């Protein structure tokens, strides 16, 4: 339901949560930076139900739907049928005027609709034609996801639009091209469009799907039961339709002599951005965050500053949001900025207290890491190691109030005592449960305020 009262361009706000006090000789400054965009189209991301634009309002956008049509999609046949229905539901969710294309993915990528290297413009007629075309989809062939992404990139770049987004569905491993080919395709597509990735069934590789979503700044999830696909696709498309501004970068300025230890998105999910820095000027660098609708995300920034004397104060980092202009050095500023400070004090009570936000997200990041390590150890057959790690994960999830992750953990381990992290590995674990835990391990909850 369109909210006409809101301007179309989202307003960004930056809030910084930190304990700025350092003891004598202290160097590490941690801060949680909450970025909130309001005034865009939807309440997207992790929170709330989206509200849609009226037709022809909102930014120009192009969407490519990539549907796995490999031979395995016919086992069981419901999978192909559900994928067709889900894609049709996504097409129905397209806002009028949005450019779109449907791609059938096997060991090669084929244009299903509209074809001819073009994009269709959504209206009642094209939506109907697209759904007709979907009926002709059938399973047969292999899986080479890199080729799907390259075709999507080609199609999406043919339109002059503000938002470019892909939705990718796969049910199997990327067996018909080398991991290097997929990596090269991801590197080429990164920054050109954003992409959500979904694995249907349980025969796909979690790290492949999460890797695609991570590289292309989208979400990853499992749809273990193909029947749930339509609802999930609709939701994804609604979120995509709510995006207002693309290619937003978190710009971090740090003073001379300061090292950036890490920059992580920590909510709604953990995503380490440290290695994705692009230098944007003296002492400042940009970290990609993708496209934004009405949403709020948290980032954990950790920098190491040169030590200073008691009583000194310095600016450890300045955080702002920009849209870098490709091909030039300039960037459009989105207004808001936050200051991360460092103040050296001999007041022990001040310098030793932990900021609750920093503590919370440090725990959430450890939770994600611990689950990953625990599952890896379990696959490797190290039951003791896996029990220790997953026990710690149960403890962290319980202490931080991350109920969703706690529930997923409880399907993989028998929880004896959550407070102490005492668990037993379940003898038999449904594959879907284990994959769900692995895929969603990076989901975080916010601090209760």
């Amino acid at each position, binding site marked *: 339901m369109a909210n006409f009262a809101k301007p179309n361009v989202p307003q960004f706000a930056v809030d910084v949560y930190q304990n700025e006090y350092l003891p004598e000789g202290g160097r590490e400054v941690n801060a949680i930076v909450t970025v909130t965009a309001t005034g865009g189209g939807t309440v997207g991301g992790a929170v709330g139900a989206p509200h849609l634009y009226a037709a022809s309002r909102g930014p120009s956008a192009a969407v490519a739907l990539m549907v796995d049509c490999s031979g395995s999609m016919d086992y069981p046949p419901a999978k192909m049928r559900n994928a067709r229905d889900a894609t049709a539901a996504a097409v129905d969710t397209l806002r009028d005027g949005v450019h779109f294309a449907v791609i059938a993915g096997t060991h090669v990528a084929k244009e299903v609709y509209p074809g001819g290297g073009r994009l269709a413009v959504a209206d009642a007629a094209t939506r109907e034609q697209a759904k007709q075309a979907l009926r002709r989809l059938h399973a047969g062939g292999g899986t080479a996801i890199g080729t799907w992404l390259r075709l999507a990139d080609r199609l999406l770049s043919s339109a002059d639009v503000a938002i470019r987004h892909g939705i990718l569905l796969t049910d199997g491993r990327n067996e018909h091209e080398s991991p290097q080919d997929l990596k090269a395709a991801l590197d080429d597509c990164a920054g050109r469009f954003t992409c959500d990735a979904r694995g249907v069934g349980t025969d796909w590789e979690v790290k492949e799907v999460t890797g695609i979503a991570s590289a292309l700044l989208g979400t990853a999830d499992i749809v273990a039961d193909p029947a749930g696909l339509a609802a999930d696709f609709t939701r994804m498309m609604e979120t995509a339709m709510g995006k207002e501004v693309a290619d937003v970068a978190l710009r971090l300025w740090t003073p001379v002599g300061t090292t950036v230890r890490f920059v992580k998105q920590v909510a709604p999910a953990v995503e380490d951005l440290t290695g994705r820095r692009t230098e944007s000027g003296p002492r400042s660098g940009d970290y990609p965050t993708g496209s934004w609708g009405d949403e709020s995300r948290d980032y954990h920034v950790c920098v190491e*500053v040169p030590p200073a004397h008691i009583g000194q104060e*310095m600016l450890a980092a300045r955080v702002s949001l920009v849209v870098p202009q490709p091909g030039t050095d300039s960037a459009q500023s989105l207004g808001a900025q936050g*200051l991360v400070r460092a103040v050296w004090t001999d*007041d022990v009570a001040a310098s030793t207290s932990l900021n609750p936000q920093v503590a919370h997200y440090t725990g959430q990041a450890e939770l994600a890491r611990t689950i990953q390590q625990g599952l890896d150890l379990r696959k490797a057959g190290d039951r003791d190691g896996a029990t220790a790690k997953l026990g710690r994960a149960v403890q962290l999830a319980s202490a931080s109030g991350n109920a969703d992750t706690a529930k997923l953990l409880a399907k993989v381990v028998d929880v004896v005592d959550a407070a102490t992290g005492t668990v037993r590995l379940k003898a038999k674990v449904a594959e879907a449960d284990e994959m769900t835990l692995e895929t969603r391990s990076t989901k975080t909850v916010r601090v209760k305020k």
Partner: protein
Amino acid sequence: MSQMPRQAALSKCPSCAEPLESGDRFCGACGYDLSAVPPPPPDHPTLAMNGAALPDAPQGPPATAAEPLPAPAPQTPTAPPAAAVPSASAAAPSPAPTPGVRFDRAPEPDEYPLQAPDPRVTADTAPDAGPVPVCVACRAGRVDGDGYCENCGHAQPRERDHLEQEFGPVAAVSDRGLRHHRNEDAFALGHTALPDGTHATVAIVCDGVSSATRPDDASLAASRTACDSLVAALAHGTHPQQAMHDAIVAAARAVDALAAEPATAREHAPHQNAPACTFVGSVVTAGLLVVGWVGDSRAYWIPDDRSPAARLTEDDSWAAQMVAAGLMSEAEAYADERAHAITGWLGADAYELEPHTAAFKPDRPGVVVVCTDGLWNYAEAAEEMAGAVPRDAAVRPLHSARVLVGHALDGGGHDNVTVAVVPFPAPPQGAGSA
């Protein structure tokens, strides 16, 4: 720390036209106090120096003689140039402060097209914020709109880091000290004629309580309010002791009011505490010396002839209460880690406001030293304080205040230091340019 919701009332600095960030309390370029509107008159000679060089000033070259070195570079702590020290001048209820010299010293020798300044005083009337201010810490970066260096990130000295004021026969100096990152002390000086034609001088010193929110605002509000209240009451003929009592009550109300301001809620302090400060003030007339206090800031009486000096105030502190109740000896009480916990303060969360006042009729001339614990920690006993006060304190109060601040800094400067030196008796003539 939300940077977004703060709304700056001004889009640029009224003094130097530097663009401001929302939420700025001081101009990042010239240090102008943005809370002090309307802008004060163009001439603010608040850092009067009285012409004389200071061979025995605490440290540093003459240009920065009376200043400690809170910043790594021996640069003036009063942030870059231009404008004024509005808080100090605004605290003065009467116009016509002494003409003086400013300490805002650019690093390079400047051209003096008209007349060379007094060579003994190398301060100059710093450039009018024309050139972009350069960081005092690294000397390489420019200072951004938030008051930090664009190169090394160091916070630039703020206006309140070091304040000096000479007002008629009284003078005060306040300094951040060496261990605190901001100056939470404040002072205010006043001078007025009594209905009988004689004169009275007023000095107020307040020490913000660090564990509270916005302690610097609390001390500033208390000192200004009390000073204004006293000057007005004295001019109407109110007895000085009654006037002092009323002034403390007025100051307490001013600090209470801060607790309700949204700015208090904005600070993400780990423990929200109502703004609070201590208070000590003195009124000196031709024959009477009145002190008033709440908390552990003190006033000392130092006779010119060095007959025994005396402490005039009784701390509202844990140690003082223990001693007063006979539970501990003074040595035991002050050795306890709770010694300095204060039991009385101005602030919305004070248990009960108990303004203490006392009146004295000294039989000989001398000076009253009104100070925060940043000084008396280094000269606790009255005799020690007397030893630290220069002999000519009554004639050179500003110099003496600087010497006393220097004494605290030499001792370690662990806290903000604020000292007012008030000669007794008040001179018959008013606040001429001393």
